[in-house]
C-alpha cells in the first residue's frame, strides 16, 4: 500500500517535472523576446577546439557585446549564428530558426556586417545599396539608408574611392537596408574617427530603440560600455563572464583606487591612512585601494587643507570595463607605473 502510493507520488512528481520541462521548453522556444539562444555550442577545426561549450541568450531590443582576445572563438560563434558554418554540437536558435538550415526567410531578417568591407569596387554607393535593397521584400528607402550612415556626400562615388571608414559605413548601410530584426556587427567601428564612432553608436542605439537586436563583437571596451546591455566575455572558446557592463566580473563591487603624489617633506606615515589599509608606494606616487573611498577622501582632503598641502595628480578611479576585462582574460597589465 505504502509502496504503491509512494511510487505513485514519485511517478506523478516525475510526470509533473517532465510536463513543466516540456512547457518550459515550449515557452522558451516560443518566447518571442528571446531572439538568440545558444546552449552548449562547440566547434572544432581539425584538432583546434575553437568553441568549447558556449551558452548565452539575447533578448529582443538588446545589444549583446561579445568580448575576448583574438582567436577566442567570438567570430566562430557569430558566424555559426549567421549560418556561415555548421556547429559540431549544441542547440542554437536564431529568431526561432536553426541558422544551419540556411533558410532564406531567416537570412531576410538578419543584417550582417563582416570584418572586411566586401562590395564590388566598381559600383557606386547608391548602386550597391539599391542592388542590395532589391533582395528584400520590405527594404528601407535607399536615400534614407545613405543618410543614416552619413554617406550623402559620397552617394555617387565609386566604392573603390571611399576611405576605409567610409567603406565600413557603407557596410553598415548594406546590413540595414533590408530592415533586419537582428543585426550582427563584427568590429563595426574599426578605422572610424572618433566622431564617426559616436555617430555609429547613436545609430545602433536608434536601432535598438526600434526594437531591433544587435550582436556586437568589438575590441573597444568603451564601445561595449556605451552600447551593450549585456556583455559576454569569451576566452579560449568558453564564456568566462557575462552580465551587464556595469556589474561584469563584480565590477560594481570592485575597489576604488585613490592615487596622488606625495607632497614633498611628507612620508606615508603622516597620511590619515584608514585602519587595515596598506597603501602602495612607488617613488613619490601613492595608491590606496579600498571598498568605499568616501570617508577616506574626506579625511585625506581635510588633512591636506589643514596642512596647506596640495595633492598633485589626485585621481579617484572605479574599475573600468577594461580593467575587469583584462583581469578576466588574464591579460592584466603589470602594476601601472605610478611615478610621475
Amino acid at each position, binding site marked *: 500500500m505504502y509502496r504503491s502510493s509512494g511510487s505513485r507520488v514519485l511517478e506523478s512528481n516525475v510526470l509533473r517535472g517532465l510536463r513543466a520541462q516540456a512547457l518550459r521548453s515550449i515557452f522558451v522556444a516560443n518566447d518571442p523576446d528571446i531572439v538568440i539562444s545558444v546552449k552548449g555550442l562547440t566547434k572544432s577545426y581539425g584538432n583546434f577546439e575553437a568553441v568549447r561549450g558556449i551558452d548565452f541568450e539575447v533578448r529582443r531590443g538588446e545589444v549583446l557585446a561579445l568580448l575576448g582576445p583574438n582567436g577566442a572563438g567570438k567570430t566562430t560563434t557569430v558566424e555559426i549564428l549567421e*549560418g556561415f558554418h555548421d556547429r559540431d554540437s549544441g542547440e542554437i536558435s536564431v529568431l526561432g530558426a536553426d541558422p544551419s538550415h540556411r533558410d532564406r526567410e531567416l537570412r531576410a531578417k538578419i543584417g550582417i556586417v*563582416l570584418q572586411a*568591407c*566586401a562590395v*564590388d569596387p566598381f559600383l557606386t554607393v547608391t548602386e550597391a545599396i539599391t*542592388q542590395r535593397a532589391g533582395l528584400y521584400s520590405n527594404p528601407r528607402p535607399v536615400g534614407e539608408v545613405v543618410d543614416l550612415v552619413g554617406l550623402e556626400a559620397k552617394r555617387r562615388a565609386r566604392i573603390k574611392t571611399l576611405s576605409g571608414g567610409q567603406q565600413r559605413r557603407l557596410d553598415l548601410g548594406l546590413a540595414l537596408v533590408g530592415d533586419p530584426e537582428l543585426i550582427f556587427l563584427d568590429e563595426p567601428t574599426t578605422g572610424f574617427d572618433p566622431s564617426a564612432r559616436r555617430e555609429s553608436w547613436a545609430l545602433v542605439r536608434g536601432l535598438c530603440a526600434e526594437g531591433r537586436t544587435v550582436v556586437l563583437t568589438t575590441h573597444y571596451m568603451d564601445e561595449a560600455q556605451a552600447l551593450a546591455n549585456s556583455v559576454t566575455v569569451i576566452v579560449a572558446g568558453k564564456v568566462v563572464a557575462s552580465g551587464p557592463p556595469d556589474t561584469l566580473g563584480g565590477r560594481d563591487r570592485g575597489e576604488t583606487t585613490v592615487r596622488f603624489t606625495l607632497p614633498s617633506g611628507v612620508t606615508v606615515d603622516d597620511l590619515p591612512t584608514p585602519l587595515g589599509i596598506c597603501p602602495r608606494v612607488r617613488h613619490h606616487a601613492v595608491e590606496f585601494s579600498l571598498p568605499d573611498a568616501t570617508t577616506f577622501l574626506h579625511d585625506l582632503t581635510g588633512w591636506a587643507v589643514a596642512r596647506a598641502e596640495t595633492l598633485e595628480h589626485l585621481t579617484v578611479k572605479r574599475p573600468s570595463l577594461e580593467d575587469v576585462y583584462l583581469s578576466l582574460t588574464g591579460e592584466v597589465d603589470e602594476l601601472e607605473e605610478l611615478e610621475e
Partner: protein
Amino acid sequence: MNDLLIAKDQLRYEQKAYWRNPVAAVFTFMFPVVFLLVVGTGAGSGKIANSSLRYNQYLVVTMLVFGLISACYTNLGITLCIRRDSGVLKRIRGTPISIGSYVGGIIGSVVINVALITLLVVGIGMVGYNLHFPYHLAAAVITLLVGVLTFCALGLAVTAIVPNGEAAPAVINGTFFPVVFISGVFYPINNESVLSQIATFFPVRHLVKGLVGAFENGPGSGFQVRDILIMLIWAVGALVFGLRKFRWEPRHR
C-alpha cells in the same frame, strides 16, 4: 522579389561593374580586335591547306575563340577568386539572394559579353575579310554555347587551385596562354603536328575545330560532333570538380 527579376538585376550590375573595370574589358575585347586588324591585314588572305577559309578568315574564327575563352575562363575565374578573397561571396551568402539568381546574373553577363564579341569579330570578318555568314548557323550557335558552358565551368574549377586573389591572374593566364598558343588560335596548325597532338588533349583545340567547321563549307564542314562531345566531357568534369571544391570564403587566415 522574384528570383528571375533579382537575376536580371544582378546581370545589370555585373555589366556595369564589368565595363567600369577597363583591364578585363580591354583584354577580352581589344586584344582579339586589334590582333585581327593588325595580323589579319598584314598576313593577308592566303589559302590554308584543307580548308575553305582564307588565313585572315581563319583568324576571325580563332579570335572569336580567344574572346570567348577570355570572357568565360579568364574573366569569370579571376572575378570569382577576387570576390571570394575580398569577402564579397561570403557577404552575398549572408543575404537572402538565391544562388541561382546570383550565378544566373553572372553567367548572363558573360553570355552578353560573348555575344558582343561574336558580333564584333564576325562583323569585322564579314566586312573586312569577305568572311561568309556561317554556312552552318546551328552548328556555330551550338558550338559557341557548348564553348561558353565548358569555359565557364573551367573558370569555376580553376578557382579551386588558385590560393588567393592576388595569384588569380598569374594562375589563370598562365594556364590560358600556353594552351591557346598550341591550339592554333594565333595561326593554323597541322592536325598531324606534335603540338596539335598535345593540344588535342585540351578543350581549346576542339572549340577551334568546332567553330572552323561551322564557318567552312564543303566536305567535312558543319557539326563537329566529336569536338563538341570532348568539350562536354571537359565541362562535366570541370563542373563536378569546381562545385565539389568551391569555397565561399578565403582560405583560413
